[in-house]
């Protein structure tokens, strides 16, 4: 039965991972995996790096990020609100859950720019 098949495939990823890599071609990070309870700390550390930088634009390459929960999106919004004037975070291909929650609770956060191209 299909549900059982899914159960066995799901068990392989019982502990979700979040991996963070520095971008080589520009200032920023590539983040892959899921932002959920067990990975909140890794995500928050990555965002602290972004806040500490002093370049005007910081890229978060998120095309391999599959899910971000509400707390994770809240941490991103809080990081964006801590940026010095004129600085911004550019999110490249964020997962739909992140965009949905950003639109819901922080629709006019000018320090966050979403790029889908």
């Amino acid at each position, binding site marked *: 039965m299909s549900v059982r098949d899914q159960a066995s495939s799901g068990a392989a990823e019982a*502990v*979700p991972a979040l991996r963070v890599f520095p971008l080589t071609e520009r200032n920023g990070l590539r983040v892959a995996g899921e932002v959920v309870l067990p990975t909140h700390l890794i995500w928050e550390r990555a965002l602290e790096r972004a806040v500490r930088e002093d370049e005007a634009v910081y890229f978060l390459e998120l095309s391999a990020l599959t899910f971000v*929960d509400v707390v994770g999106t809240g941490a991103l919004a809080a990081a964006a609100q801590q940026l010095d004037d004129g600085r911004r975070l550019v999110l490249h291909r964020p997962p739909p*859950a992140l965009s*949905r929650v950003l639109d819901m*609770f922080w629709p006019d956060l000018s320090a966050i720019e979403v790029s889908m191209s």
Partner: protein
Amino acid sequence: MSAVAETFEPFLHPALFYAGEQEYLDGTVSFVRAGLAAGDPVAVAVPGENLDLIRTGLGADADAVRLLDMREAGRNPGRIIPGVLRAFADAQPHGRRVRIIGEPIWAGRTTTEYPACVQHEALINAAFRGRTVSILCPYDTRRLDPHVIADAYATHPTVIHAGTGTGAERDSRAYAPEDVVARYNEPLPPLLGMPSLALSLSFAADSLAPARHLATDEAARLGLTGTRLQDLALVTAELATNSVVHGGGSGTLRVWAEDGYVLCEVHDKGHLADPLAGRRPAARDQRGGRGLLMVNLVADLVRVHTDGEGTTVRCWFAR
């Protein structure tokens, strides 16, 4: 009895009992016009056909009023306080009385929706206590069951009978909103059809991700797509994480279909003591506290049962 009871309460929350279009118009249009004449901000959130009546009754004055179809904006009653009433009231300048007509209960509300509707009406009183706001709630006495009208006396401190001519507001002697919240905190209805067809699984901290994946895959198989499927994933993650963090560390998750809806439900051993949880809008710079609010904003219906034994949250998503 005491000085406290005599304290001036600026929040007004009358029920308006009406029978037929003329009484509806008499009661609602006069409320809107009084607000406009005083320079107060006014919003109307009522079912579409009644919205049309009020819009026509107001004529050109309708342009000065925020008009919302409650069938859409208030489909999930748990969304009405944060997403409709406070969303409007909090955006207005201080010092003005905010006036809102809110009609969350209409004849087409199902028996499944009704407990959430009447709990919402009761919780408006706690949510707006102390605020300079008037919320008028029309009740169709011809089409609503007598027990619904009886409940409206318990959820509203005052009542107005549109048919009496004077439109005078009288105290409701049956006013007891906390009793209503408790009385409708009832066990959720059993699953329709065959319960064995529901996906049912246990989860704990180390299995949150597979639980969400299984729930989302099952919802997709049952016909949920696009944003609705994303919303179910967000809701499942939120409720299951709450169980792990606040609800005893583990819980059970079920997903199934009924009629035009996919349902997901999370049960744990926790107790949800705050009836306004998920009904307060979040300040922009507030950390956390958005989980249950998000659930209320995206689901088409949320029902909760909570007591000393545990908490069950069931969410409906139209497919």
